[in-house]
């Protein structure tokens, strides 16, 4: 697979190459654990092998005897600090070294610090603990789990959405289904491992750690360590994959900071792949019951979605995707309910499209079943149920191009050549199946600050405490400035990933491009205003053009009459070498506290289903072809086509790359990914990339991304809808639909493996 970046269409920006692409592919980008540090000591975690109980004693004698061991941080050593908080910035309320209670397998029981990584690792393996263990509850259906309604437990789900009289409508529907679906436990497994490097200089603490939320972490870490946030700096210039896993700070960060203070030198702790499964967040398993009722004409009259999600004992982590599924189609009536199931597991967390991936999977698999029950083409079924307004609050969509996406993707895919009869398409020994599904993701943005400096020689520097987690936001922020200030990209530099920069919200929820670009836009406009004023002033080079429309291109200020002035000449008049502007952007409808909260690391999100005037979503349609061997039933995906509309596309290259990556991940979710749990002891058994399967190159053949033009100025000043999390929503349902088409087997529990298809 090798494709050029898509040619920009209406309202789509140039496929500018990534500012940091060369650095990354040549290994010159320094990730947080690569930062050269003098006199560094190494930390390795020791973790619990039981999932529930109490630690009665930790034996550290043997470990301390290993040559090179400097210190062991364990129970009692964190008492001077506050326990972590569960929420936007904190992964869990479990303070592993504050309390000897074990809440999950792999909970931190000590951090060994040594002169070398090898010594620390050897010593960590020699740490033994005595436990008073209790039988743990692993997951759904395990004895001892606590089930409770989710609504109101977390900001992710305020209430169970509903509309109309579901019971009556469902009871009287001519055609209906009532089915259960499930998604497995999944771990993000970014290739860059999790790490913390802590350094103290007097009272100043610098943390190098891959992060999606440097401002939030600064505040939260200062709170835990009981120090002034002004003395904490979080640095994370490059992140080697995050997908939500580097959004909330975990307990490790404070432990490493304390260790560094104790040994009086920098400490670096890189967490092993295995330990990351338990000390970081993950996507917990979900279950769904979907009921859909429709008339014989295919119009849906009733939609019911019940969800169950696993979380830890102490923390009510909820994803609650019913807000999106309940607004997807023109249902008539809607009934939803989400429950959380507390088990002896580590606290789950955001994972690329947290609510939509599991919930839309269930909805879209059910939609396909319903189309079959109705004897209707699945694309047609969705078209018939396209809403004018969203069914819950009756609000309009700020824009909705789903039908266009279906049309363009179906055309490119060749959907019309599909023979609808199950098992009817074959290529030699291979059964061929084709399926489709809808992708949806809420469009949100959050307050964000940025600083832009333009110098008289036309150099632009953009600074913003957002995070380049691989999405290309550094590039598009630079593009925004280049475009607005009429400067070539080669003269633009962008600094991100440092809490010393102007604050930005967490890089999650696909808000970064919209929020960052809106702030950069505002700062650029302030720079422009200053330049324009000077240019048209009495002694300025464009004196007399005061009423003309001014713009900036090619290092010039251009007036609508045709006159122009060189940037350097305007600077001469102004008698300055640089103009620097700091701007704060707050989305429409922000509360008066919105900016204050930004600085406090708690940026509020706006958009999605939260706004009064409209609901804001990006949409897409995905089509998949599968081939299944008629003897051995292995499943292959020769091609996948997705068409997506997401407002202004800043850069068709990075946009395509995000969507393509999302669809590939979706294939993995459909066919490969699952963390296996030993239910007897609530332990994960496949904690490495050998057994936790993700697609490899050979699994991915043709992936086509179509960027459907869309203009939506309602969403934010930049007109941008997030698309980082759109691509992998719906993919697994499209695969399930294709597998059904090929074999007649409806697989409702992910992943779909040979086991399900062979008998």
């Amino acid at each position, binding site marked *: 697979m090798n494709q050029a970046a898509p040619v920009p269409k209406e309202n789509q920006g140039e496929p500018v190459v990534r500012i940091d692409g060369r650095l990354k592919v040549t290994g010159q980008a320094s990730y947080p654990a690569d930062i050269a540090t003098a006199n560094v000591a190494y930390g390795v975690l020791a973790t619990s092998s039981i999932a529930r109980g109490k630690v009665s004693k930790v034996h550290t004698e043997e470990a301390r005897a290993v040559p090179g061991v400097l210190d062991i941080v364990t129970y009692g050593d964190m008492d001077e600090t506050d326990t972590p908080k569960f929420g936007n910035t904190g992964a869990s309320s479990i303070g592993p070294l504050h309390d000897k209670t074990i809440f999950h397998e792999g909970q931190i029981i000590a951090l060994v610090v040594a002169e070398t990584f090898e010594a620390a690792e050897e010593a960590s393996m020699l740490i033994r603990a005595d436990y008073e263990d209790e039988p743990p509850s692993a997951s759904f259906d395990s004895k001892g789990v606590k089930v409770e309604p989710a609504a109101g437990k977390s900001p992710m789900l305020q209430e169970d959405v509903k509309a109309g009289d579901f019971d009556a409508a469902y009871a009287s529907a001519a055609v209906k289904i009532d089915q259960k679906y499930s998604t497995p436990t999944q771990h993000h497994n970014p290739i860059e491992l999790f790490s913390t490097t802590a350094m103290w200089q007097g009272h100043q603490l610098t943390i190098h750690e891959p992060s999606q939320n440097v401002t939030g972490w600064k505040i939260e870490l200062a709170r835990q360590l009981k120090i002034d946030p002004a003395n904490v700096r979080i640095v994370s210039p490059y992140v080697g994959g995050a997908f939500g896993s580097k959004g909330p700070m975990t307990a490790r960060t404070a432990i490493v900071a304390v260790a560094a203070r104790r040994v009086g030198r920098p400490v670096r702790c890189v967490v092993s792949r295995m330990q990351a499964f338990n000390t970081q967040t993950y996507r917990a398993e979900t279950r769904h019951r979907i009921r859909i009722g429709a008339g014989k004409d295919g119009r849906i009259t009733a939609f019911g979605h019940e969800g169950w999600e696993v979380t830890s004992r102490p923390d009510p982590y909820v994803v609650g995707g019913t807000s999106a599924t309940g607004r997807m189609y023109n249902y008539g009536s809607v009934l939803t309910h989400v429950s959380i199931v507390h088990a002896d597991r580590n606290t789950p967390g955001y994972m690329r499209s947290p609510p939509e991936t599991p919930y839309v999977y269930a909805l879209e698999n059910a939609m396909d079943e319903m189309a079959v029950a109705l004897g209707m083409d699945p694309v047609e079924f969705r078209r018939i149920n396209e809403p004018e307004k969203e069914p819950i609050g009756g609000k309009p969509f700020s824009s909705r191009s789903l039908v266009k996406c279906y049309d363009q993707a179906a055309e490119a895919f060749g959907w019309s050549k599909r023979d609808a009869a199950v098992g009817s398409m074959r290529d030699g020994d291979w059964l061929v199946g084709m399926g489709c599904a809808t992708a949806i993701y809420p469009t949100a943005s959050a307050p964000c600050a940025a600083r832009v400096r333009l110098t008289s020689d036309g150099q632009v520097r953009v600074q913003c405490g957002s995070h380049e987690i691989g999405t290309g936001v550094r590039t598009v922020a630079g593009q925004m400035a280049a475009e607005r200030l009429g400067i070539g990209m080669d003269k633009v530099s962008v600094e991100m990933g440092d809490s010393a920069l102007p604050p930005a919200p967490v890089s999650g929820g696909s808000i970064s491009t919209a929020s960052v670009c809106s702030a950069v836009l505002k700062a650029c406009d302030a720079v422009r205003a200053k330049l324009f004023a000077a240019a048209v002033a009495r002694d300025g080079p464009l004196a007399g053009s005061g009423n003309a429309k001014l713009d900036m291109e090619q290092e010039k200020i251009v007036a609508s009459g045709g006159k122009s002035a060189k940037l350097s000449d305007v600077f001469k008049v102004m008698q300055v070498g640089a103009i620097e502007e700091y701007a704060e952007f707050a989305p429409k409808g922000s509360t008066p506290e919105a900016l204050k909260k930004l600085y406090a690391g708690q940026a509020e999100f706006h958009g999605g289903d939260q706004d009064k005037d409209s609901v804001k979503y990006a949409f897409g349609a995905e089509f998949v072809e599968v081939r299944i061997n008629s003897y051995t039933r292995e499943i292959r995906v020769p091609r996948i086509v997705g068409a997506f509309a997401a407002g202004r596309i800043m850069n068709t290259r990075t946009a395509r790359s995000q969507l393509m990556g999302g669809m590939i991940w979706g294939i993995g979710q459909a066919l490969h990914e699952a963390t296996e749990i030993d239910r007897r002891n609530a332990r994960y058994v496949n904690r490495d990339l050998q057994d936790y399967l993700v*697609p490899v190159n050979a699994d991915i053949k043709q992936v086509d991304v179509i960027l459907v033009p869309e203009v939506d100025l309602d969403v934010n000043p930049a007109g941008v809808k997030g698309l980082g999390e759109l691509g992998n929503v719906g993919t697994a349902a499209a695969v399930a639909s294709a597998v059904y088409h090929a074999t007649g087997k409806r697989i409702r529990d992910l992943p779909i493996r040979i086991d399900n298809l062979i008998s």
Partner: protein
Amino acid sequence: MRPFLYERPTSVSAAIAMASRLDARNVAPTQAKTQFIAGGTNLADYMKLGVAQPERLLDLNELTEPALRQIKTDDDTIRFGALVRMGEAADNNDVRRRCPLLADSLKFAASGQLRNMASLAGNVLQRTRCEYFRETSWPCNKREPGSGCAAMQGVNRQHAVLGTSDACIATYHGDFAQALIALDAVVEVEGQRGPRKIPFASLHRLPGDTPNIETDLAADEVIVAIEVPLDPWSRRSRYLKIRDRESYAFALASAAVALEMDGNTVRQARIALGGVATVPWRARAAEDALRGNVLDDKIAAAAAEAAFADARPREHNAFKIPLGKRTLVRALLETRDMKV
């Protein structure tokens, strides 16, 4: 990882002498204080995990005997030196032409990077990937005799259905070994008690009550070569590997098949099964079912039934029985249809 001594003998005899120094004669190589390392792709991994705990490593990569790195073919054998890398053997034109099964079993294994590192001797001696074996906090009879078997009632989707015992159900995951056992290869070994030749089928031991003893080798014995006879069925041979993804994964089920045909009738068949058994698995009952018969879907299915007659599933791996049968059927028919 624990500290260990690392030494690089330069001749096979020196390696044997060094290996004999620390250990009692009857200790299994995987539990010996001194262990050999070749590509290290299996052993180093397990040392990092604390599963293997040698005190001393003898690196075989400095051995100077040229034959250790050579592939030699004559009219009726292919002889692989023990240190030949998987990638080199997979790409060898002579091997590919004269016995596609050998080349494919290597080509479909691991990844390009691993195949460049891993040696053929190390490959046949690779230890199981049982998840519970890999992590020292679980009970495991293979790693810690007598501690129990966590997989028996645990997550055992990838475990074996053939050759299991009440002590261990771990799969032997290697691919090359299936080709070798099917083709009646012979392993050449040198050790303190002198050189010997072991039929490949006798190299690995069924788990029985002692799953910790995996092979017939003594701790001081070095594999120097693997010799594969070339027979009338070598050219019409094939390796079919079914896995969860298209590359870089172990077999859920695989079949190594070599056929000598007389028109549509099977004169000779050689069959081995991977991904489903505790050791490299020769399916003699299936061979017997085919011999002298016209190879069609029906007889292929009968052979597959015979191959899995004694299969014993556990909670999560029952699918391997139908999958294993279908893999064999498909492999037989595809091998029959090969143009040679």
